[in-house]
C-alpha cells in the first residue's frame, strides 16, 4: 500500500518520458511547450479563484459556516462526517475551482493530515465536476435530453463523498 503512494508519481513520469524516447519525440521542447500551456491555464483560474476564496473566507469568518455546521451536524454525525466538510460535498459537483478553494481553506485551518484534511483530500481526489462535465459533453453534440445521466452521476458522487468519510473514520486511512 505504501509503495503505491511512493512509486506512482515517479512511475508516471517514467512512462511519459519513455513513450517520448521510443517514438523519438523532441522531449525537451515538447515539455516546454506543454508547460507553457499549463502556465496559461494556471493564470486563467486566478480570477475565479480570487473571487471564490474571498467568498469562502468571508463565509467562515462571518460565522455562517459555524451556523451551518451546527444546524446540519445532527445529520452528518450519523455517518461521522465532520460538519466542516458539508460545503465541500455541495460544491464539488458544481465547481472545480470552488472546491479547490474549500479544500485549501480546510488545509489551512485544520492541516492536511487532520481528519477533516484527509477526508477533504479523498473527496476531492475521487470525484469530479459533474455538472460542468455533463454540460460540456452533451452541449457539444447538441443533446438536450440527457435522460438518466445526472441521476447516475450524482449517485456516484454521493458514493464517493460517503466512502471518503467511511474510509477515514472507520478504516483509518
Amino acid at each position: 500500500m505504501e509503495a503505491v503512494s511512493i512509486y506512482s508519481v515517479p512511475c508516471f513520469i517514467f512512462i511519459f518520458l519513455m513513450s517520448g524516447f521510443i517514438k523519438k519525440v523532441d522531449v525537451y521542447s515538447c515539455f516546454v511547450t506543454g508547460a507553457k500551456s499549463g502556465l496559461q491555464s494556471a493564470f486563467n483560474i486566478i480570477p475565479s479563484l480570487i473571487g471564490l476564496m474571498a467568498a469562502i473566507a468571508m463565509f467562515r469568518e462571518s460565522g455562517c459556516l459555524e451556523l451551518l455546521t451546527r444546524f446540519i451536524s445532527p445529520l452528518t454525525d450519523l455517518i461521522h462526517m465532520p460538519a466542516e466538510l458539508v460545503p465541500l460535498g455541495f460544491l464539488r459537483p458544481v465547481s472545480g475551482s470552488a472546491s479547490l478553494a474549500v479544500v485549501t481553506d480546510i488545509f489551512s485551518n485544520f492541516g492536511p493530515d487532520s481528519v477533516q484534511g484527509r477526508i477533504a483530500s479523498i473527496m476531492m481526489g475521487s470525484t469530479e465536476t459533474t455538472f460542468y462535465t455533463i454540460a460540456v459533453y452533451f452541449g457539444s453534440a447538441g443533446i438536450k435530453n440527457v435522460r438518466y445521466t445526472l441521476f447516475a452521476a450524482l449517485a456516484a458522487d454521493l458514493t464517493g463523498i460517503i466512502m471518503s468519510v467511511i474510509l477515514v473514520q472507520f478504516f483509518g486511512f
Partner: protein
Amino acid sequence: MMNYIWGGMMALSLIVSVFTGRVEQTAAAAVSGAGEAVDLTVSLLGIMCLWTGLSKIGEEAGLIRMISKALRPPLRFLFPKLDPDSKAFGSVVMNIVANLLGMGNAATPLGIKAVKHLDELNPRKGTATDEMCALVVLNTASLQLIPTTLISLRQSYGAASPGDVITPIWICEICALTVGIIMTKILSKRFKHF
C-alpha cells in the same frame, strides 16, 4: 448556478456578520482570501506546468493510442452494443485513457469527439443514447490515477506524506464508479431511449 452560489455566499456572510458582530473580521477575510488565492496559484504553478509538460510528451508520442490497445477488451463490457472497430469506440477508449493518465487537456476534446461519433449512430438526435450516458458518467467520476494538483496542495500545506491518500482515493473511485455503472444499467431500462 455559480452566480447564485457565489453572490449568495458573500451577501449572506455580510448579513450574518452584522448579527454575529464580526463585520470587521469578515471584511478582512475578503482581503486575505483574495491574497491567498494568488499564493495558492503560485504554489501550484510548478506542479501544474510540470504535469502539462510531461503530458505533452505523452501526447506527441501517441501514449494514449498505445495504452488504448490494452484497454479495449475490458471496455467492451461497458459498451456492449458498440462495434469495437468503430470510430466511436476508438474515441471512447482514448478519452478514458486520457482521463486515467490525468491528461485533462487532451481528455476533454477526445470526449467531445467521442460524443459526436456516438451521435452519428444515434437514431434519435437530441436524446442521449445509453452509450453517451455511460461515457459521460465515466467522465463525471474521477478516473485520474494520480491526483497531482491535490498531492502538491497537500505538500505545500506540510502534509507528512502528501501521496498517502492515493490508495483510499482509488478505493473511493472504484466504489463511486461501480455505483455509477450499476445505476446506468438499471436506469437505462427505466428511461427508454424511444
